[in-house]
């Protein structure tokens, strides 16, 4: 377990974070939210006003007890955004630089092993200037893992790469993380990247932890409006609760003149204002000849207000009949548009299952 407790004024940090060992955790948040500062504080590159960092019971810093372990004495690997390779050293020498505590023969052997693990063997004699972006990233990764660190810190390691190279590297990195069996903390603003690489997500905003949990749980069920916004949930709607059953965790919420059934909701007080959300992909289109609609949950009538056609998806914005003033977004395959005659102004029937409605803390 890695425990990170930080307080600082500039950049603002107010954080108590517990990260599971030997797993990959992504710190996700918008630019300027303090993610990189947290990583730098863990590495000892940023001295915060108050800090307590424990890595598997080893104290790296504790400002209350006056403990401070210098960066060089923290067993970590760090890959920063631009990789910071030593430009005058070859790929092999770069990796060897992290192994100066070993005798020279052992150093070379271990550096070569790291280069192989990072899939960059064969280019060990090249200077960083003669490597492509993806190759530099691999060398930086090889250098970071060479010391067999207890924590591997990655700061937006794909931001300088094109999409296809980054996607190829996701696969390699996932394989590498499995082999290393070490704690990885990845900083990214890209949710897709975080979802591909991390088992846990930690949402960061204004230097605070907004939500922490497994990636699947986080991407499906944000707990607050702030988390839902950070996770790019589109349908965030303010409404009120009309009835809540404590035993079954089922509730009814009012939206405009409609009553929506909600499953697995926290206990809500009647008439209390609340926010709910549903993912556009969880809003389903009911076929015109709709049969067996009883199992689909909340059935609503809606008018298509806007259509945006993307390559893989069509984003349909709906005005729900008798619903609140907010527009609802749903996601469809482009082929479904013509098949079900979904066009602007068309009246369609949609379904929202009670289990996919998420109640959010304000």
């Amino acid at each position, binding site marked *: 377990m890695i425990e990170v407790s930080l307080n600082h004024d500039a950049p603002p940090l107010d954080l108590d974070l517990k990260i599971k060992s030997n797993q990959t955790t992504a710190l996700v948040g918008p630019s300027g939210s303090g993610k990189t500062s947290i990583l730098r504080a863990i*590495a*000892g*590159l940023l001295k915060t006003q108050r800090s307590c960092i424990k890595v598997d019971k080893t104290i790296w810093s504790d400002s209350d007890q006056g403990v401070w372990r*210098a*960066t*060089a*004495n923290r067993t*970590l*690997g*760090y890959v*920063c955004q*631009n990789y*910071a*390779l*030593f*430009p*005058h050293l070859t790929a092999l020498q770069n990796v060897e*630089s*992290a192994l*100066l*505590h070993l005798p020279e023969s052992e150093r070379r052997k271990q550096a070569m092993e790291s280069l192989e693990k990072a899939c960059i063997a064969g280019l060990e004699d090249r*200077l*960083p*200037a*003669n490597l*492509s972006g993806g190759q530099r990233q691999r060398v930086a990764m090889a*250098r*970071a893992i060479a*010391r067999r660190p207890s924590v591997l810190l990655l700061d937006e390691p794909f931001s300088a790469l094109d999409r296809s190279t980054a996607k190829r590297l996701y696969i390699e990195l996932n394989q590498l993380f499995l082999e290393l069996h070490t704690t990885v903390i990845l900083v990214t603003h890209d949710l897709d990247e975080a979802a591909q690489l991390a088992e846990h997500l930690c949402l960061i905003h204004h230097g605070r932890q907004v939500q922490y949990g497994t990636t699947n749980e986080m991407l499906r069920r944000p707990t607050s409006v702030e988390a839902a916004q950070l996770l790019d949930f589109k349908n965030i709607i303010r409404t009120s609760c009309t009835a809540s059953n404590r035993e079954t965790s089922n509730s009814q919420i009012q939206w405009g003149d409609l009553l929506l059934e909600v499953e697995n909701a926290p206990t809500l007080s009647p008439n209390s204002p609340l926010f709910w959300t549903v993912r556009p992909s969880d809003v389903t289109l009911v076929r015109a000849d709709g049969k067996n609609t009883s199992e689909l949950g909340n059935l609503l009538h809606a008018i298509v207000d806007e259509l945006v056609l993307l390559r893989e998806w069509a984003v349909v914005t709906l005005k729900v009949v008798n619903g609140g003033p907010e527009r609802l977004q749903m996601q469809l395959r482009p082929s479904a548009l013509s098949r079900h005659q979904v066009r602007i102004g068309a009246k369609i029937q949609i379904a929202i299952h009670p289990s996919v409605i998420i109640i959010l803390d304000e």
Partner: protein
Amino acid sequence: MDITAITLSVKLAFWTLLFLVPLSIGVGRWLARTTFRGKLWIEALIALPLVLPPTVVGYYLLVSMGSHSPLGRFFEQLLGSTLAFSFEGLVAASILVNIPFAVLPVQRSFESVSRDVREAAQCCGMSTWQALRRIELPLAWPGILSATVLTFGHTLGEFGVVLMVGGNIPGETRTVSIAIYDRIQAFDQTAAGQMALMLLLLSLVTVGVSYVLAEKWLHRFRSQH
């Protein structure tokens, strides 16, 4: 041609470099890494010899080295004679006058080593000394080379301060620049011309070699794609 003067000039440049290069690495790195109140004043003080007339610098050095000043008396007790009009005094003056030529290029080259690279060295577990030796010094090398060449060339050519502090004592303080002036005064155009040409060629070769070395070094970092 006054071979003694040429040898003396080279000797003066050697001693100046011996003291000034390590000093400029220390001061240049410190100034490049730290920010504090009053840093600009320290930088201004370092750059001062660039703008002050050599006679003014020479005058203050002469006064401070004389037996009437506490510093002069201290060195008189230490060395048995005053620093003024001695080779040791000339070395001290040369070091002071050349501080901007040595420190400024070194400071700029340390500034050009990015924070990310320095932090990467720390994350690799390197001590301050290891990071300096393996990463920072090699990357700052063109600046250090440039500082060395500038200081060497400037020491060979320095005239005003040398004349004020050292006078014109053959074998002790008569450097090649003074010797050229001395030969002109004596209407010995041939000797003055030979020494001037030799100084010109020496300076040209030194600067040229340093440019080639720096370019070769920088070429390594540039992409060959």
